[in-house]
């Protein structure tokens, strides 16, 4: 730790090229028209195309898996009673099960292309209607917890990076690792035991009292905390690393050498640069939140898509399972596309030559 200033100045002098590069990254560049926009459009077209391919692959794989499923869906439907062959034929015909698998696959793909996700097995309620009833509830949890955890992660990560290797950073980073290691459905159970059962402050299950329409806020608190914590930890860790890297860049030395206050340099230069990788991470995190809602909704009896999904799997409700996965996949693909666009917009370096950012895994 001897003479950090001297080494930093030395480094800054040695990398004058990078300083200009960094200054370029920080200043607002006029968005060029013409070629870059076209490059962006071509890039988005490619991404869109590969998204569609991916969706088809997902549907195909799941369709095959569900074809392989052992057990008789009819017996699941009518319960454990013997049924006559005639009735069986009739049910088969009703749901189109008498056709060979490939024919049903083609019919289904055709339907999906026209936006028809089929009907739920047994009840004959359209899948899109079932999903439509539930998706609002899932988003009512997922979006606030995504926003809260992102803001929290940026703040906590920045503080930890700024106070690195001191007790506050140790505390924050340590808590992040701990929260990251928590099975978050268990955290939900513990929160129920503590706040609902022992203290009696908050309700345990559902989204509102029985018979009440809509969502009540006190029912949302525990599920929100449960959902947000692991994502908060995941993003805070990345934010901290990104911020440390950003603080160590030469443009920070430049900012200091031109007499900028530490705090101002942090806000003006370090934070925007540190936020760049967070765009990609946020996209990834949103898909974590959506997938994780299966567990959280199970813990809190929250009537969203996750509960619908578990029920559909248990009942072997093929079209409902497929429908939910399709909706989820399309949502995630859209999120990825938006992430790509936002990344291209916020990073001036990428406005000229658009490349697909590398996504990082947790």
């Amino acid at each position, binding site marked *: 730790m001897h003479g950090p200033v001297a080494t930093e100045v030395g480094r800054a002098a040695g990398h004058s090229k990078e300083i200009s590069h960094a200054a370029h990254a920080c200043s607002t560049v006029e968005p060029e028209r013409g070629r870059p926009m076209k490059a962006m459009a071509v890039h988005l077209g490619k991404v869109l195309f590969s998204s569609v391919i991916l969706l088809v692959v997902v549907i195909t794989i*799941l369709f095959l898996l569900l074809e392989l499923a052992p057990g008789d869906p009819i017996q699941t439907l009518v319960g454990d009673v013997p049924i006559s062959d005639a009735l069986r034929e009739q049910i088969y015909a009703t749901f189109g099960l008498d056709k060979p698998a490939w024919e049903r696959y083609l019919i289904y793909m055709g339907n999906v292309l026209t936006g028809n996700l089929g009907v739920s097995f047994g009840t004959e309620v359209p899948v899109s209607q079932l999903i439509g009833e539930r998706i609002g509830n899932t988003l009512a949890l997922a979006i606030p917890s995504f926003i809260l955890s992102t803001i929290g992660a940026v703040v906590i990560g920045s503080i930890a990076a700024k106070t690195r290797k001191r007790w506050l950073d140790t505390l924050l980073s340590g808590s992040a690792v*701990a929260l990251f290691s928590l*099975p978050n459905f268990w955290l939900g159970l513990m929160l129920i035991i503590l706040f609902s*059962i022992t203290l009696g402050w908050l309700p345990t299950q559902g989204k509102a009292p029985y018979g009440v329409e809509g969502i009540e806020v006190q029912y949302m608190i525990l599920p929100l905390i449960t959902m947000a914590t692991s994502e908060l930890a995941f993003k805070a860790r990345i934010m901290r690393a990104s911020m440390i890297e950003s603080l160590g860049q030469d443009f920070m030395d430049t900012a200091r050498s031109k007499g900028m206050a530490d705090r101002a340099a942090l806000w003006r230069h370090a934070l925007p640069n540190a936020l760049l990788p967070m765009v990609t991470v946020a996209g990834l995190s949103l898909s974590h939140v959506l997938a994780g809602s299966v*567990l959280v909704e199970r813990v809190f009896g929250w009537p969203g898509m996750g509960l619908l999904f*578990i029920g559909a799997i248990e009942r072997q409700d093929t079209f409902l399972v497929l429908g939910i996965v399709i909706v989820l*996949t399309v949502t995630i693909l859209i999120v990825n596309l938006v992430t790509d666009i936002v990344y291209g917009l916020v990073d001036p370096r990428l406005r000229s030559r658009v490349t697909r950012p590398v996504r990082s895994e947790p």
Partner: protein
Amino acid sequence: MSVQQLSRPASDAAPEAAPPRRPARRPRNPDAIWRVYFRKPLVRIALPILVVIVLASVIGPMLTGDPFATNHPTFVPPNAEYPLGTDNLGRDYLGRVLMGGQVSLLVGFSVAFLCLTVALVVGGLAGFYGGVLDTVLVKISEFFQVIPGIVLALVAAAILGSNLAMIVIILSVTMWPGVARIVRAEAMRISQLGYVESQRAAGFLSLRILWSDVLPNAMPPVLVATTMTVARAILAESGLSFLGIGDANRPSWGALLNQAQPYISTAWWLALFPGLCIFIVVLAINLLGDALNDALNPSIGRVK
């Protein structure tokens, strides 16, 4: 200690003893990676905890009696006789939690092992040779990035059956691309380096270069990723079995939590202990992985 051993031949000043001594043992390197690793305070805490839990899970059920015996009173809170209480059927919960540990840990380690094996083969070949295999690997890992693993695993486990082996396979299928991507990136980087080039010039078979130089040198980040995979697999398995998808005959920690949920308002200990075990084990593994990362790449994450 090492200093004493090194300085002894000189201080003895016995010329006839010196020649046989010198080649006998290489001087200890105090900066060897594993030594740096075991010196870290976090490792010294996390490793014993992990070892104790693993040993307790493996040996424990033999000492605590039959975890399936229902001859105890029901719903006894933790006390001296039953350290973790008893469950709704009057089974000793300590035995059941330790049994659950066997399953969870087995799944975690075997998934990580499978992922490592597949990732080294596929990632190594893809990164070193490029070409079609590389394109396919990139596409597969993009696929698994888009589809959340838990969704795929839920459907697959519900359909293909949920015995232990199947769960391990399904989790490995959803998790290996994460490790393989790191192997691929490292193999790509290393295959450009001078020592690989000089081996090519020396006429070695490319597979031999891959085996003897590329893969060993790719190991550091891959090992860290594999360690993290153990933790992620344990978490994923607990999530699946919490949703009721797991081996019914061998309840893991997640399955115990699933069974505990209906009694949560009366028997808090049923929900507390299995989750606490998951938390401690996953935390210990994550800390060990972080420390491994620090030991292997001392420059990363260090304050300048």
